[in-house]
């Protein structure tokens, strides 16, 4: 089950003076749901484009199913990439898009596509140009699920989908994945919504991977300690601080470490309150710490100023 199906080595992608990918090393295993998280412009879409052979890397190597994907039909037919703003031919209706997908993907399940279209209340005979933003996203979600490709990328597939439709997407994803395991890469800003679906999390920030760990390892890997500022600071002395907030004499400090049961007991005796940090909070804290905001985490602080400027 742990076969590597994607292997990226030293991937670099420059756009003029911008390092969209700055030496990315990544390997993805078969039959897992990955979360690819990061801010806008962090490099998520660029990474997925390079892995799916829709963009060229400036240097480095990306192997998918052990081969280079460029113009390689044997590899490409096993990959499905649902982009945030997928373009379709002008006169296409959703059913035409589904028919094209059915020709391309050998695992295509028309029954599933029909059921999903009904679930999302998608007008399959209306021209795609006339669809609402949410309906357009639904077309992508349906193709992504019904293609059952061994490697499926969803790049923020939820634009314009309301909360009900997004929940429908997550539910159908879990159900279908359970029956037909495959590798799914879900890129999302709505981290809280997808956190429990993910088995592994990759966080990218300014072209670099700053976190690459199993979701269950991350859960509980950070903790927020709050109470009197003096006691909090004394208790946390020497630890990796991700974020610090104060209110009068009270402080709330997030550390990038877990606490053992003895330390927890100690905190309790000091009257300090411990609270868990959600994946979303952790990603926010880590990317802010890397951007030179609060805290000093290693690894991401050495960006040159002009790169930062270019980002803004």
């Amino acid at each position, binding site marked *: 089950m742990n076969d590597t199906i994607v292997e990226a080595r030293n991937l670099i992608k420059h756009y003029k003076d911008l390092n969209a990918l700055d030496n990315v090393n990544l390997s993805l295993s078969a039959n*897992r*749901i990955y979360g690819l998280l990061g801010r806008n412009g962090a490099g998520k879409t660029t990474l997925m484009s390079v892995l799916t052979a829709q963009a060229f890397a400036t240097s480095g190597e990306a192997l998918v199913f052990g081969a280079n994907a460029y113009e390689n039909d044997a590899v490409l037919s096993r990959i499905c990439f649902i982009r945030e703003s997928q373009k379709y031919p002008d006169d296409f209706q959703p059913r035409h898009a589904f028919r094209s997908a059915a020709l391309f993907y050998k695992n295509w399940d028309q029954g599933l596509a029909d059921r999903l279209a009904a679930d999302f209340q998608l007008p399959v005979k209306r021209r795609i140009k006339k669809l609402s933003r949410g309906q357009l996203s639904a077309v992508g979600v349906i193709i992504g699920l019904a293609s059952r490709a061994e490697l499926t990328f969803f790049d923020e597939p939820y634009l314009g989908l309301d909360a009900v439709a997004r929940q429908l997407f*997550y*539910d159908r994803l*879990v*159900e279908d*994945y*359970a*029956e037909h*395991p495959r590798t799914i890469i879900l890129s999302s800003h709505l981290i809280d919504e997808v956190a*429990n*679906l*993910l*088995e592994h999390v990759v966080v990218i920030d300014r072209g670099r991977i700053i976190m690459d760990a199993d*979701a*269950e390892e991350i*859960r*509980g890997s950070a903790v927020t300690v709050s109470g009197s500022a003096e006691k909090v600071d004394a208790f946390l002395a020497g630890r990796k601080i991700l974020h610090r907030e104060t209110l009068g004499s009270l402080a709330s400090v997030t550390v990038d470490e877990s606490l053992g049961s003895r330390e927890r*007991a100690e905190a*309790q*005796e000091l*009257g300090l309150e411990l609270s*868990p*940090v*959600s*994946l979303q909070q952790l990603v926010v804290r880590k990317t802010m710490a890397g951007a030179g905001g609060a805290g000093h985490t290693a690894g991401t602080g050495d960006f040159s100023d002009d790169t930062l400027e270019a980002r803004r």
Partner: protein
Amino acid sequence: MIDDSKPIFMQIAELIENGIVDGSMAEESQVPSTNEFAAFHRINPATAAKGVNVLVDSGILYKRRGIGMFVATGARSQLVARRTEEFFEQYVKPLALEARKLGISAEQLNTMIERSSGLVPEPGTDKERSAAL
């Protein structure tokens, strides 16, 4: 139901344990499949499987090939024994700590515990349940 305080697989294992301890999952009855757990809690199926496997490894659940997972005979007493040990650390210690902070004497504390057990229906052997309430 699922929160961020600890790994999800542990929470799944605890949910099943709770069901066994409170009797809603009887011994030798079948437990839901990992895919059913995944769909119900909206979690990754691999995570649900990990939670179930924790209980298989400790002999709480057992696998019947081709049929599914079942609660082992003796699972409840095994869980109650373990939880009774954890009960002191988890409930009694913090209780004593908070009581000391508030200046509540041991005697007053005892009176309170007696009064509270009057509020709870006869709990039988599961001490941890009456304490949790």
